[in-house]
Structure formats: C-alpha cells, structure tokens
C-alpha cells in the first residue's frame, strides 16, 4: 500500500470516529426525541403525528410552568451556595495556603467525594438531616433545641443542601484553575499603584477569575437542573423537579410525546445557558478592559 491512501485512511479515522460518535450518540437520540415530541398520546400508547399540542400543553397547563420555575429556583440556589462556599475556599488554596502538602490535601478532600456513588452521598444526607438524625441529636445534646425538629429533611432546603454538597467540586475546580492562572505580579503591581487588598481583589483578581466562575456556575446549574435523585431521596411533597416529571411521563403516564417535548424544552434552556456562559468566558479571556 502506498503512503497516500494510508494517510487518507488515517485522516478518515481521525475525523470519522468523532463524527460517527456525535451522530450515533448525540444527533440520533436527539432526533428521536424531537420526533416523539410531535407525536400524540392515544390509548393504549401514542401514535405518530405532526402537531404542536404537547408544547402548547407545556406552556398552558400551569403544572409544568410551576415545576420549571421551581427547578430554575433550586438550581440557581445550588449554584449560588456552591459559589459562596467554593470561591473563598479556592482563593485560600491558591493565595493563602503556604504549605503545598496541605493544599494538595484540601484539594483532594473536595474531589474525593466524586469517587463515591452519587446515590450513596445523597442517601447519607437523609441520616444527617432526619428527625432522628445526626444534626438533630447534635442540636439536642448541645441544648440548642429541646425537641427533634422535622424542618431539615423532606423539603427544598434539604434538596439545596444535598445538591450543593454533591456538585460543589464542579465549582471549586474551574475557579481554582482560573485563580491559579493569574500572574502574581499583577496584584503586586496593583499594590504598588496604591490599591488596598480589597480593591485589588475587586478590580484585578475577581475579574480575571470570572471565566472560572462562569464555568462553575454553568456546570453546577446544569447538573442540578437535570437532577431527579435528590427530590426522590430528600425532597418533600413540594420537591418535584422537571426531570421527575419527565420520568413520570415516560413511566406512569405512558405519554412519551409529552415527556419528549419537556425534554426538548429543558435541552433548549440548558443550551442557552451554556452558550451564554461561553460568551461570558470568551469575553473574560479576551480581556474586557
């Protein structure tokens, strides 16, 4: 075999495999879901059609808008809580932690839970937050409360706590990376020009770390936006999220068309958030000043 066809073959493989991958594992499934979303529910199952009824239902029946609004609220809260905890932590690791060993240990402490089953980690919060759980025993033993309180578990609070715990590594990692990339001499220069530590942080460090923050927000938001295990394990009667409704439509209600339409709406929301954050990140990288 001569060199040219071999090179062509190699080229075809390099390009072909990813294209095939995208085709088979992304475009094809999405295509199927999009197709289903135009079908119509008819006992005993559903049948092919081309109509927008499912989408109309999603935006006219208040139950779906309610669940979407709740999901947006929960994922926004999870992202904000993760940010509030992760930023100071990452900042400490990069700028304040003097010992390399300690830094590695602390960083690993955040990453390590990712190796434990997601389900197990969510389950653990049940034993912590429950009426007869660890938190209540602690509060009673310290005399802060007299009776075990049921307010920690089976509500939206428990969901935010659990999801924040589970997804916070995805906030820490990009912020850590972004902070680490900031040249130290910039803050020195800022100090030389008479800026205090706060103003240096606000005008130099924070803006330069924005790409990491945006990436962290996107990851935690999208992950919690599609979650359906936390509502099931630690959520209460008012904890239904979009993913739970999709699961119900594909299972109990046997209404795959409506479930597909909901999945498409969810996909559009997530994609717009990703592209928005992409724009934010590239603006940050390009330097906005």
């Amino acid at each position, binding site marked *: 075999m001569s060199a040219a066809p071999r090179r062509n073959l190699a080229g075809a493989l390099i390009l072909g495999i990813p294209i095939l991958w995208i085709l088979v594992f992304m475009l094809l499934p999405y295509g199927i879901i999009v197709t289903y979303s135009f079908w119509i529910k008819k*006992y*005993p199952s559903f049948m092919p059609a081309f109509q927008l009824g499912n989408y109309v239902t999603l935006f006219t029946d208040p139950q779906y808008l309610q669940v979407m609004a709740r999901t947006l609220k929960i994922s926004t809260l999870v992202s904000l809580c993760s940010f509030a905890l992760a930023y100071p932590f990452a900042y400490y690791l990069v700028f304040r932690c003097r010992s390399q060993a300690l830094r590695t240990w602390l960083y690993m402490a955040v990453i390590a839970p990712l190796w434990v089953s997601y389900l197990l980690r969510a389950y653990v919060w*049940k034993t912590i937050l429950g009426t007869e759980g660890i938190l209540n025993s602690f509060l009673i033993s310290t005399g802060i409360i007299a009776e075990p309180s049921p307010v920690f578990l*089976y509500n939206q609070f428990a969901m935010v706590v659990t999801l924040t715990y589970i997804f916070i590594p995805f906030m820490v990692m990009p912020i850590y990376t972004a902070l680490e990339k900031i040249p130290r001499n910039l803050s020195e220069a800022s100090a030389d020009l008479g800026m205090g530590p706060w103003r240096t942080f606000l005008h130099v460090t924070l803006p330069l770390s924005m790409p990491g923050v945006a990436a962290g927000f996107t990851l935690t938001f999208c992950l919690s936006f599609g979650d359906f295990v936390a509502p099931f394990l630690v959520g209460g*009667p*008012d904890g239904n999220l979009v993913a739970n409704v999709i699961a119900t439509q594909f*299972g109990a*209600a*046997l209404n795959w068309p409506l479930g597909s339409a909901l999945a498409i709406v969810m996909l559009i929301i997530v994609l717009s958030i990703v592209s928005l954050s992409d724009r934010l990140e590239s603006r940050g990288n390009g330097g906005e000043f």
Partner: protein
Amino acid sequence: MKTQYLVTACALSALAGPVLAEGSVSVLTWEGYADPSFISTFEEQSGCSVSATYVGSNDDFAPKLMAGGGIYDLITPSIDTTKLMIDLGFVEPLDTAAITGWDGIYPKFLGQDGIQKDGAYYGMPYSWGAIAFMYRDDAFTTPPTSIADLWREDLKGKISLWDDKSAIYVAARKNGDMNIYDLSDEQIAKAQEALLEQKPLVRKYWATAGELVDLYKAGEVVISNTWAGYQSSLLAAEGVKVTEFIPTEGAEGWMDSWMVVKDTPNKECAYKFLNMQLSELGQCGVANVNGYSAANAAAAKSCMTSEQFAALHQDDPDYLDSLLIWAPLADRFETYTNAWNAVKAQ
C-alpha cells in the same frame, strides 16, 4: 442440616447455569415472586432455569416491553395494568387447559375484566391483597379508623401517601365518591382539591416499599396507606410496632396475574412455571415470602397452616368481597394520572 446443604448445592448448581438446564424462562416480576426459597425446587424438578428481573412499580412493565421483545417470557402486572398489556399487544392468550389448578382460583378473580379479552384469558391470577392503611402504635391513643385521619391537622408532617394514581382513589372515597374507577371529571377535580388540601400535612409521598419502611423506622411518619401484609411484616422484623386497618371508607384490592409475553420461544418452560406458581409450591411460596394472599384457594388450603390461612383472609369471602378490586381505567387513565401529577407539581 444435611438437607439444607443439599438444597444449597442444588440452588448453586441451578445458578451455575443453563448448560445443565433443558430450558430457561425469564420473568419480569415483583421481588419475592421468583424467590430462591421455592424457585430452586422448581428449577431442579423441571430442568428450566429461571432468571428474574424485578420491577419497582406497575409503570415499569410497559416501558420495558416497549423497548423491544424477546427478553422476557413472563410478566406479573397488577390488575390495573393487565388490560393495558393486552391492549398494547404485549401478551398472548393463555391455554387454560394446560394449567392445572385453574378451577381452584377464586371466581371473583376469574370474573375480572382486566385479564380477559374476546372470551380468552390473558392472565393467571396469582396473589392478592388490600391497599390497607397503617399506623404506628405508639403514636395513637385512639386507633384511627377513617381515611379522614390522613387529613388531620394535628398529624401534620407525620402523614405519608403512596405516590400513585391510587391517591385519587383514596381522596375520592374521603369525599364520599365510592365509584373510584369510574369517576367523573368533577369528582376527579374534587379529589385533586382534597389532595392539595392534604399536601401541607404530608411528610413525603412514598414510592417504594423500602422507602415507606424507612419512613416509619426513622420516626418520620405515623400513618399512611400500605400494601397489606408486606411493609408491616418488614417493620415488625425491625421491631417497629404498626397496625394495619381497613378504613370505614373501604380499601382498594389488588391482584397480580402471570401473563405470557407474545411469541415467547420458551413456551414449554413458561407453562411449567405457570403450573408451579399456581400449585402449593408457588402459592405458599409467595405467601411465605411476601405475606400476600394466594389466588388459588384450594392450593392455599392444603399448604398453609390454619392460622396463616385465616391471617391471609383466605377463609373469609366477605373480606375479599369488601375490597374494591382495581379496575382498568382505559381511556380515563390519563385524566387520573394527570390529576395526580398536578397535585405533585404544585
């Protein structure tokens, strides 16, 4: 001890594989319905190896079978789902002449619409029970007797309800509508309203048997509905004292049937399996493992002790008659599930 060793050895050899077996059968069923305690005996006697996949709810059957046939030979949907399986064309008519013990089945079950179509039977009744209610003994001085107790303000945050369209049945009965499988739109709307009114009092809607057990064990709830016999015995084993009761508004009844998946290549083993399940081995097998009542009264009588026979209401036709056995909702199904979903969405 020696026999036990022998049984274990047989079970192991059965597990060791289809190489030894003459045939095989694959079942999609509830946990306990293919329990090794009686299935290993069957495998040994019939030469058919059994592989079981378990479902968590009746909603799992259709999506699993819709994904494509050729995997499962037998399924056990409840009587609210059997009709759907027939109408979806997933199952085939039974050759009742090839099933010994068919005549021993309670006539009430053989009369159910859900397992027949055009004069043919598609389901073999297997086990049954009530959707009873249950409370924690130490939480009540006067035992609850009514569905209305699940709407009591003073039990706020201690109530649980099954996450199923059955919630509509419960709320309708509370409203005094006893035609729970044939509710009008207004009646369903009223039931939905009642459930919304109850919602702030609910600690958690339970989805699986294990979840309800956990809720009682962790002291989170004190009253709920339940699959009679099942969760209460699991709780008893954990040392949690609960009592089941049939409320004054009556209880739903469920009945599970074995159905043969259309065009199964393992028909011979499938029918051997059906025969076993309707015999003493299968009927007392499920009664002992899950605490459910048996559909074949004749077999149950010969393999149960008189105490068990009485405890499972096998000797009490009035009890069975008092249950509102789940009926297929057909094209009303969507209205029911939609109402329940709307409650959960709020």
